[in-house]
């Protein structure tokens, strides 16, 4: 089983939308969640292509910079 990769928030904010489901395949930079911060909708992109294995946040959750929002298997 390949190691999973943590997808971390790049800014402190609130979860605006969760853009993926568990099992979904993504390409690099595809949005995983969108955060509302600084009055903008800021996507957190996949660091590489792979399959989403776990989602750790839901809509309206506060998220800190560096916090893991989902995990992906490359």
């Amino acid at each position, binding site marked *: 089983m390949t190691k999973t990769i943590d997808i971390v928030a790049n800014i402190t904010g609130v979860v605006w939308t969760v853009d993926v489901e568990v099992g979904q395949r993504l390409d690099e930079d595809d949005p995983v969640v969108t955060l509302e911060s*600084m*009055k*903008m909708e800021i996507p957190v992109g996949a660091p590489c292509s792979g399959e989403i294995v776990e989602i750790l946040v839901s809509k309206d959750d506060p998220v800190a*910079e560096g916090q893991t929002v989902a995990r992906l298997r490359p």
Partner: protein
Amino acid sequence: MTDYELRKSRALGMGGPRKLAARRNAGLLNARERMALLFDDGAFHEAGLFAASERAEDRDRTPADGKVLGFGAVDGRQVAAVSNDLTVMGASSSTVNGRKIAYAKKMASANGLPLVFLGESSGGRIPDNMGARGMGASAWDSQQYARIRETPWASAVLGPAFGSSAWYTCLSDFAVMRKGAILAVASPRVTAQAIGQDIDPEELGGSEMHARKSGLIDQVVDTDEEAIAAIRTFLSYLPSHAGEQPPRVASIAPKVDPEMLGTIVPENRARVYDMRKVLDALVDADSFFPLKQRFAQNLVTGLARLDGRTVGIIANNPMHKGGALDYDACSKAINLLVLCDSFNVPVVQLVDQPGFLVGMEGELRGMPAKIMSNIQALQMASVPKLSVVLRKTYGAAFVNMGGGANSDEFILWDRAEASFMDPGIAVNIVHGVSARDDPEQFKSLHASLSADSSPFELAGMFSAQAVITPEKTRSHLIRALELHNRAPTGGLGKRRLANWPYA
């Protein structure tokens, strides 16, 4: 062989056939091969071929004393270079090779030559540097590290770089690093001894760390060849010395039609986009030379050409952190301003920012002072400064990004807006009402606090010189660069940032 021929062949033989073969097998170029690659015809005018250690017992095993120094042409212009030879006592710093570096710097400044450091060095030489006498002998030059940016300096980190090579990399205007090289104050072994912990070299000073975290490295490459090519490209944007303007080349149309600018940037200001796509439709095709691309990605900086003229780019990137300036982004902006102001390069700022990124992390690092450093650098820079607001510019960062009198021309797109803060936040701050708790009251207060943030308000009070439509951005900037040309001084600025310590 005559005595002369013998001495010469020993000096050119560097650390000997065994060490040179080991490097070749590892796919590494040696110090002289790197010099040959840097210069147009592979040849250079050497100074100090017969230099050697001051210690009699080391004299026969220190060809060129571990640092090869020479002068040659890069794209037809003369350049000075120092190439560290790791096969000779680890290119460690000694009295004699210190003298060689001092000579290289003096001649580069005296003759207006860019200076290149091809770096890998193990640090101070032992036993030369040991004891009080060693320390005293190592500090004989009161201006050794007083960088005054009379000519551009560029460094390549091509192996272990501790001590000398680390210092000169940080003093340089451009630093490229080969993957696998390590840049740190001291070697992992010395560091591990000092703090009694295991040290992972890549974590201590690998290219990934410097490109993302420390921001000391401007570009990362895979090979020596790519590193030296990057230095040649960097120098092509700059004048040979601060007393002249950057070279101008033939104009090339942008990669993407400037007519597309209005659609590349989404009108909805809550939506993000990649600022680098704006550059594709703005600057001469393939001319953008990014600096610190993976450090503080919320700000894009680099050199580029507009109509064949070199410009420095400072651009918010909404794709990362909404384009908000934080501590590292301010450092990155200062670096670019220092480079441009030192070498007569006009600055173009592309503005789309929601205000400073506030929070604990920035405050703990001293964010207010960094904001002031950024503003001070901008206001002291005397090269032409042109700023274009694409969509919005909020808060105190309005000034950092060239607002009002902080640019020679402050230009806004017709759809842009400027204000102290987003009215939605202001309602919360002033009245303590949020959209979620009381939507009706929020809506009415929002309307009352939405002072007109139109670009025509700024233009109306002549705090902005122009309002343009997006597709005119390139042609407007090209015309502005022709006008703001500092003709009375032959295009030269006052260079007040030339003495700025490394940001």
